[in-house]
């Protein structure tokens, strides 16, 4: 097991080096001149040059690159110019916000999509199958920011059931002392039930928005994979042996149908983490998605590089975890690995 993990991590190194080089070059190829941007509206040409020198952007590209990799090796991601903070700190502070939102969205999504997919597969052509098709199609075809805005309009502005879309906590609550960075957990650790309720109520709308969006791949994949498994011979044998339908579906079919669903889950998760930019914008959520986009708009190199690198590392880790999970679910994978 450990050698497998070690091996996998070794394989990840070349791809990480590739990511470092590509993001460096890509950010440099972006249109826009950070020096002119940060010199301010009233800058003269000399002022722009002064800033360029201060930022080290007057050096040759290769020197900039070595300086950048050297800093990276020391754990220094550089400073963001738009927010003025070290990128590493910002990503550390913002990642839990995005992760908490994404995870909750994913949990809600799984809780709805998997039963829906399973039911749809066991009764193909029935009303539940159609319901599955309609909800998933609607979910993917509605852009997230639109769903988000509609939810805000209905549940906050019209009905007033939901709190103001102002980030992770109501403005008059204080953030819990950071333990995990997940407010739902931290508030409970701090025994602050009020703050927990506030954090939860702030999470409901954005998490629902994400869940609606990610329903489709999970439900469709569950349905397809269940259909394939239900048509296979061992299920027929199980049925013929007189096992109860529940046992057949849950114990035999579902476990075997899990593998592709897990793969989809990992894809959906990583993709949601990066793509919940719009949800973060709509709900003023202090996550990494909105951070990266703002940096991109102002040609702020360091956060963009830091964001892509963090994402790359997360993908590598995620894939590793998924591979290990395969082994847990299906022993045959372990033998081959």
């Amino acid at each position, binding site marked *: 097991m450990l050698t497998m993990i070690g091996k996998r991590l070794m394989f990840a190194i070349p791809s990480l080096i590739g990511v470092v080089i590509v993001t460096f070059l890509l950010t440099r190829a972006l249109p826009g001149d950070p020096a002119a941007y*940060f010199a301010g509206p009233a800058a003269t040409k000399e002022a*722009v040059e002064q800033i360029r020198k201060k930022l080290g952007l007057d050096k040759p590209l290769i020197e900039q690159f070595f300086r950048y990799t050297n800093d990276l090796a020391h754990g220094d991601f550089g400073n963001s110019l*738009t927010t003025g*903070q070290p990128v590493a700190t910002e990503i550390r502070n913002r990642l839990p916000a995005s992760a908490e939102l994404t995870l909750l969205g994913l949990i809600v999504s799984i809780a709805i999509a998997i039963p829906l997919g399973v039911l749809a597969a066991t009764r193909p052509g029935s009303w539940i199958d159609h319901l599955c098709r309609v909800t998933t199609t609607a979910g993917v075809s509605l852009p997230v920011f639109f769903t988000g805005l509609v939810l805000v309009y209905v549940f906050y502005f019209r009905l007033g059931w939901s709190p*103001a879309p102002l980030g992770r906590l109501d403005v008059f609550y204080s953030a819990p002392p950071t333990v995990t960075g997940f407010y739902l957990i931290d508030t409970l650790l701090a025994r602050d039930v009020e703050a927990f309720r506030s954090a939860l109520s702030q999470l409901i709308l954005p998490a629902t928005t994400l869940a609606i969006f990610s329903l489709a791949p999970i439900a469709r994949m569950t349905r397809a994979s269940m259909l394939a498994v239900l048509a296979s011979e061992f299920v027929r044998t199980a049925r013929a042996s007189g096992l109860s339908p529940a046992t057949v579906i849950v114990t035999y079919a579902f476990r075997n149908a899990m593998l592709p669903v897990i793969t989809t889950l990992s894809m959906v998760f990583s993709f949601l983490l990066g793509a919940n930019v719009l949800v973060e914008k709509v709900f003023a959520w*202090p996550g990494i998605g909105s951070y990266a986009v703002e940096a991109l708009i102002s040609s702020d190199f360091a956060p963009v590089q830091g964001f892509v690198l963090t994402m790359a590392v997360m993908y590598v880790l*995620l894939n590793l975890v998924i591979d290990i999970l395969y082994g847990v679910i299906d022993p045959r994978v372990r033998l081959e690995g």
Partner: protein
Amino acid sequence: MKRRDFLKSVSGLAAGAALPAVPSVISSAYADARSETLLIVSEGGPNNLDIHGVGTNVPGYEVSWNCYDRLISHEMKSGPGGVPYYDRDKFKGELAEDFRIDDMSVTFKLRKNAKFHDGTPVTAKDVKWSLDRAVSVGGFPTFQMSAGSLTKPEQFVVIDDHTVRVDFLKKDKLTIPDLAVIVPCIVNSELVKKNASEKDPWGLEFTKQQTAGSGAYKVTKWTAGTEVIMERNDDWVCGPLPKIKRVIWRMVPQAGNRRALLERGDADISYELPNKDFQEMKANGKLNVVSLPFSNGIQYIGMNVTKPPFDNPKVRQAVAYALPYQKIMDAVMFGLANPMFGAPKDKPTEVAWPQPHKYNTDMDKAKALLAEAGYANGFETTISFDLNFAGVNEPLCVLVQESLAQIGIKATINKVPGANWRTELNKKEMPLFTNVFSGWLDYPEYFFYWCYHGNNSVFNTMSYKSAEMDKFIDGARTAAATGDKAAYDADVKGFIDLAYTDVPRIPLYQPFVNVAMQKNVSGYQYWFHRRLDYRALAKG
């Protein structure tokens, strides 16, 4: 699920490592009475708490304005619609309890009881250090100081612990006003020096993260891109104690949500909303909406006069007759702007800026002028705008494009990303474009010096050069400094007339600053920097 546990522990570890960096300051926050707290929502927040920093953005100015004091500030007068408006010509002491302007210097007596946030008294050496810093750090602050002929540390002289003299390099009417803008703020020199390094002698890294001033508010928590929390400095002596105890300033990127927050009564103040929203909020009357014209600011259509076809004044005049001014006012600005066009033919030029020009939409005249210039069949060009302000710029350019097509000018729209806009302006190659300029110092010659003078500053976006124009502008600056009113008036009228005959840029309108607030919020004041002054605000 092992995978999830694993992820949680990973991000948990990461967050744990961040613990010492983020002190939780706002504990017991919700116990505070709402009435003493002001909740502001806006699109963007500061990137630096110190205006002397590298690339501090406009929201950062608001923090500086409220958390630092200057030697002097402006008096208030009653502005349009009875809203308090800063008085360009009247100054009052802020940190200075008294000041005396002599022929070639100004002497400030400091308040003896003024203290920085950490309790150290404000002394003359702090003032000198801060002004030295402003003229030395480079970039925007140094540039702004130079606009008032404040360029050398030798100009700032400590007389005794509570007296400072500022020497003039030359006579300049803008020197005193320039000491009342945001930049010459007084910084706690001992505190900052302690936190400076050899690489960073002015301690910019330190003041970027925290306020080190003597102002009415101090930043107690700042999460970049998310929120700024400011508490009142109860020991502030430079004015009456502000009514608002604490200010929570949240960044809400979605304009629709900012409006929803206001209308539901959750947020107290917001700005930076689309004009349409402001107009609707004004109409339904649930909120107070204040709209005041930008002082010394104009949105215009500019033309590059160095290249054909816009090197020909006839072509420029043709464009000036072809612009859909009224449509822009109605459909883009929703009436929230002062028109800068269509003055009556016989109206004499005033000694004032901005003032409307005499062009109006007149397609026949435009066609005739274009034919006279030898472009009877029109030509092709591109019209560029800054995507950061796409809400106004995009519909505006579409209307202009449509209108120009009627006289045969085919304009393609070129959308320039915000990060790139200044680079493009600096290149001075865009043939046709729209932009806004507004000056902190509200004097016509200041505006013209930056926008029309042959020294070709970045704001002379048209690359316009005219010996006659330079003579008027330089003449007005000299006349202002020496107090020669007749010469000043003649020169100001001269450059305005010339700017409107040559029309290198065509003013469209003077935009409004729009601020929406709850009915129970009072005390809003208009300042040249167009940001909020919390010191005057009150709730309930």
